[in-house]
C-alpha cells in the first residue's frame, strides 16, 4: 500500500483528491515579551515561517533539518497542540486552525503523535494498561471494562509487548519497550494519521531497527499515513516516500526521497547530505564533503534576504536582496526554493 510507486500512481489517478493533509502558508511565531508589570511583545521567534505542503494518504513524508529549524513545531502545530499564528491546516478536508473544543477533540481520534523521548512522555505513576486505555476513556470507546482490557492487551501484543505486563509501570521497561508503549497509545483510537516526532533518536542502534520495522508493519496493516520528523537522514531515506528539508522555519526542498538524495538541488540539502557519515570506510575515503561554516542563525532575528545566505557556499547578490523564492518545481514532484535554481 505504501510503496512509492503505488503512492505515486494513486496521486495521479486521484489527481489531488487524496491528500489527507493540506498545509498552506503555516506560521507559528512565539512571542518574546519584556517588562515586569506591563508585558509587551518585543519580538518573535519565527519557529515556522510560512510553509506549505500536502501529505498523500498512505505515504510517509519525512521532515528533516537540524535542531531549531522548526520541524517539531510544525508537527505540533499541525495537530493544533500549538495554535498557528497564520495559515491553514486541512485534515481530511476539514480546516483545523479555526476548530476548537469538542470538534477538535473528535478530530484527534484520527490524528495522533508519537513523541521523541520515551522516558518523559509516559506518566511514571500510571501503569501501561492505564496509559494505553486513557484515550479510550476520554473518547468513551469500549465502555465495558473487560472489553477495554481485552483491546489493550491486543494492542500490546500487536506492538510486541507481552500483555502479561499490563499492570507494570514505565520504569520497568527498557527504552525500546517504552517507545512501543507510546506507539500502542497512539494506535488506541485507530487513527489514520500519525506524527512521529523523532521516535527513534533516543534509542540504541540495535533497537532503532526494531521500532522502525514495527512502524512499517503497522503502516501496511492499518493503512497509516506518517509525518516522520527526524534528523537521521539515513533512516529517513529508508522509511519515507517523500522528504521535506527545513531550514530556519522554511521548507527549502521537497520531493521523492530517492530523487532528493540522488539529485539535491538546494545548497543546504547538498551540504546536509554530504555531512552524513556512511558506515563504510571505502565510501568515506572517496567522498567529497561540503563543509558549511557557521551555525544556524537566531530564528528571532533571521538574516535579511534568503535565510541561508549566512552559510551558503554559492551565495550571490540576489540572495541578500530578495527573500527566498517560493518552492519551484524543478523536476516532476521535486520542489526547491533557491535563487540559484530559478
Amino acid at each position, binding site marked *: 500500500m505504501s510503496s512509492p510507486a503505488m503512492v505515486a500512481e494513486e496521486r495521479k489517478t486521484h489527481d489531488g483528491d487524496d491528500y489527507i493533509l493540506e498545509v498552506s502558508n503555516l506560521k507559528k511565531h512565539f512571542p518574546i515579551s519584556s517588562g515586569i508589570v506591563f508585558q509587551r511583545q518585543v519580538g518573535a521567534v519565527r519557529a515556522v515561517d510560512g510553509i506549505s505542503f500536502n501529505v498523500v494518504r498512505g505515504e510517509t513524508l519525512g521532515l528533516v533539518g*537540524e*535542531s531549531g529549524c522548526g520541524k517539531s513545531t510544525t508537527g505540533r502545530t499541525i495537530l493544533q497542540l500549538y495554535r498557528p499564528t497564520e495559515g491553514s491546516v486541512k485534515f481530511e478536508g476539514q480546516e483545523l486552525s479555526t476548530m476548537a473544543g469538542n470538534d477538535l477533540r473528535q478530530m484527534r481520534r484520527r490524528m495522533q503523535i508519537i513523541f521523541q523521548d520515551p522516558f518523559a512522555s509516559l506518566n511514571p505513576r500510571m501503569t501501561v494498561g492505564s496509559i494505553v486505555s486513557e484515550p479510550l476513556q476520554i473518547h468513551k470507546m469500549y465502555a465495558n471494562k473487560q472489553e477495554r482490557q481485552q483491546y489493550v492487551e491486543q494492542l500490546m501484543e500487536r506492538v510486541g509487548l507481552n500483555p502479561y505486563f499490563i499492570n507494570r509501570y514505565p520504569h520497568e521497561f*527498557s527504552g*525500546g*519497550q517504552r517507545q512501543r508503549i507510546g506507539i500502542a497509545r497512539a494506535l488506541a483510537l485507530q487513527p489514520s494519521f500519525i506524527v512521529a516526532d523523532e521516535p527513534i533518536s533516543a534509542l*540504541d*542502534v*540495535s*533497537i*532503532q*531497527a*526494531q521500532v*522502525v*520495522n514495527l512502524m*512499517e508493519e503497522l503502516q501496511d496493516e492499518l493503512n497509516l499515513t506518517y509525518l516522520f520528523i527526524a*534528523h537521521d*537522514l*539515513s*533512516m529517513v*531515506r*529508508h*522509511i519515507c516516500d517523500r522528504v521535506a528539508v527545513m531550514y530556519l522555519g522554511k521548507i527549502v526542498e521537497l520531493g521523492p*526521497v*530517492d530523487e532528493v*538524495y540522488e539529485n539535491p538541488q538546494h545548497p543546504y540539502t547538498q*551540504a*546536509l*547530505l*554530504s*555531512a*552524513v*557519515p*556512511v*558506515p*563504510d*570506510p*571505502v*565510501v*568515506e*575515503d572517496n*567522498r567529497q*564533503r561540503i*563543509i*558549511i*561554516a557557521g*551555525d*544556524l542563525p537566531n530564528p528571532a532575528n533571521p538574516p535579511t534576504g534568503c535565510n541561508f545566505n549566512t552559510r551558503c557556499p554559492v551565495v550571490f547578490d540576489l540572495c541578500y536582496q530578495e527573500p527566498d523564492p517560493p518552492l519551484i518545481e524543478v523536476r516532476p514532484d521535486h520542489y526547491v526554493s533557491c535563487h540559484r535554481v530559478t
Partner: protein
Amino acid sequence: MSTLLEVKDLVVRFYTQEGTVYAVNGVSFDLEEGETLGIVGESGSGKSVSCLALMGLIPSPPGKVESGTVVFEGRDLLTLKPDQMRLIRGKEIAMIFQDPMTSLNPVLTIGTQITESLKLHEGMNTTQSRKRAADLLDLVGIPDAYRRLDDYPHQFSGGMRQRVMIAMGLSCNPKLLIADEPTTALDVTIQAQIIELVKQLKDEFNMAMIWITHDLGVVAGIADRIQVMYGGRIMESGSSHEVFRDSRHPYTVGLLGSLPRLDSSGEEKLTQIEGSPPDMRNEPVGWPFAPRCDVREEL
C-alpha cells in the same frame, strides 16, 4: 612505530545500592603512536568506562578497577599515586567529553579554563598562557580569539563549545587524545566541521587518538582500527576495512544490517537484532551477546 598504550584484562565494577554493576569485564587492547582507534558500542557497553579507567577518572566509591594493567609509555597508570597521575592527565593524555555544555564550568571564563592546565603543566605565567590560549582558539577556528577569552561558556553555541573543549584538550600537546562521543550532541553539519577539524589537528600534532562513539558512520571515516564493544567486552577488533567490509562477529554483522544507508534506497527491510542489551547488574555468564545471537551454539 612503537606501542604507546597497552591495556590488559581491565575489569571495572561499580558497587551501588542496587547491587554490583559489571561495567567492564576483561578488556585488552593496545594503541600505536599516532594511531586512531575507534571504539564502537551501544550505551552500557563499557566503552566510556574503560577509557575513564585508564585516565584514572572512575569515581570511587562506588566504582573500582578490580584488575588489569594500563601501560602507557612503560608506566602502569593504575599503580600511580593521584599526584603522579595528575602530571599525566591533561598533559600526556587529554580527554574531550560528549556534552560541551556540562563539561565546561559555567561560572569561569573560557580563558580561565584553558589557561589553567597551561599554568599547571607548562609553568606559564598569565600573559604567556593567555597568548597561547588565544592561539589555540584561533587554531580550532574560533574567530576573534583573543577577545573571546573573556567570554563565558553560555555565550558560545554548541559547536563552538566543542571547539573550546578541543582547544583545551590540545593545550599541552598530548600524546594521546581520548574523544568520548565528541559529536553526538551536535547537528550533522556541525559534526562534519568538528570531524574535519580533529582529523587535521591530529596530523598537525601527531597524536594518537581514541574515538568513542555509537555511530558506526563516524568512525568509518576517521579510525585506522575499530573495536566493537558489547556487554563490557570486546566483540571484534580489526582494521576499519576488515571490520566494515568483512565483519565476522554476529553482533557487528547485525549492527551493520540494522543501519539504513544514506547511499542506497531503502527498499529492503532492516535486519533487526532481537531482544535488548544485557542488564549490566547481572554477573556475566558466558559470552554477553549469546542470548541475542542467531548463530549461537550451546557452549
